[in-house]
């Protein structure tokens, strides 16, 4: 059994005077999650590219720093994945490493569905015009509710 003083010594070695502040950090990370995710992915991509190029051209974080005219500490900060990078910085890294880190989609890619107030759709045709019923509902968003049904057979 360990002595009390020895326990205390061992315990003191493990603890710090500073508060961990994990809650503040966690709330901050939660609030900034969207860009932090992107920053982390960019950091992983940069590190893996450095690893790939190292045996070929001796690429290092220091070399990138020199080519970008910034301090190696700054590059080290970037590869930790918690840096809010500017487009200028990203472009410079892309140019030094010869890779593409981000791109902008050419087409409109919808990532978030915007809710439009729902309108109660009444059948545009009478019950005896069953053959048009499905068609009417399908295109309802493109036509006024009381507009005549377009005749697709003549189109």
């Amino acid at each position: 059994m360990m002595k009390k003083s020895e326990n205390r010594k061992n315990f003191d070695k493990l603890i710090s005077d500073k508060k961990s502040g994990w809650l503040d950090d966690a709330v901050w990370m939660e609030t900034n999650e969207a860009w932090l995710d992107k920053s982390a992915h960019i950091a992983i991509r940069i590190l893996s590219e450095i690893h790939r190029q190292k045996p070929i051209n001796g690429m290092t974080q220091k070399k990138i720093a020199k080519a970008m005219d910034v301090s190696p500490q700054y590059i080290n900060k970037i590869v930790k994945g918690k840096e809010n990078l500017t487009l200028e910085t990203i472009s410079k890294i892309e140019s030094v490493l010869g890779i593409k880190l981000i791109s902008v989609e050419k087409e409109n890619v919808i990532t978030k569905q915007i809710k439009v107030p729902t309108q109660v759709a009444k059948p545009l045709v009478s019950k005896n015009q069953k053959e048009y019923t499905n068609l009417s509902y399908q295109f309802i968003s493109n036509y006024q509710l009381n507009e005549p049904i377009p005749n697709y057979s003549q189109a």
Partner: protein
Amino acid sequence: MAYFNLTKENAVKETIYEAKQFRKELLKCRHKQDKLKLLFEKLSYNNAYELLLKQKSKRKWLRIYAIRIDENCFLVTGGAIKLTQTMNERKHTNEELVKLEKVRNYLNDNNVFDFDSLNDMKSEL
């Protein structure tokens, strides 16, 4: 060594994802402290617990280690990536075991056995 045929990059991404889930679960416990006990699983080691994501996944390797002091009071001692069956098999997880042991001994020596006695000890420090 290949683990689940993962690339290094994907392993890092999965670890980041796991850490994020831990953070979210722990943040939820800010207002519902009784949920804390549901997050931790008991280790075979005396009174020690580990935080393990209880979602269905083939691979989960991130762990947070803690000593349970009261029903919903855990003293976190550290964390690790655990890839082996037992904690003794690797140096870094074995160190976590040593930490757990040291903290447990310290708490025992200071008569910490519940939330109130923990607060008493803190005020005496």
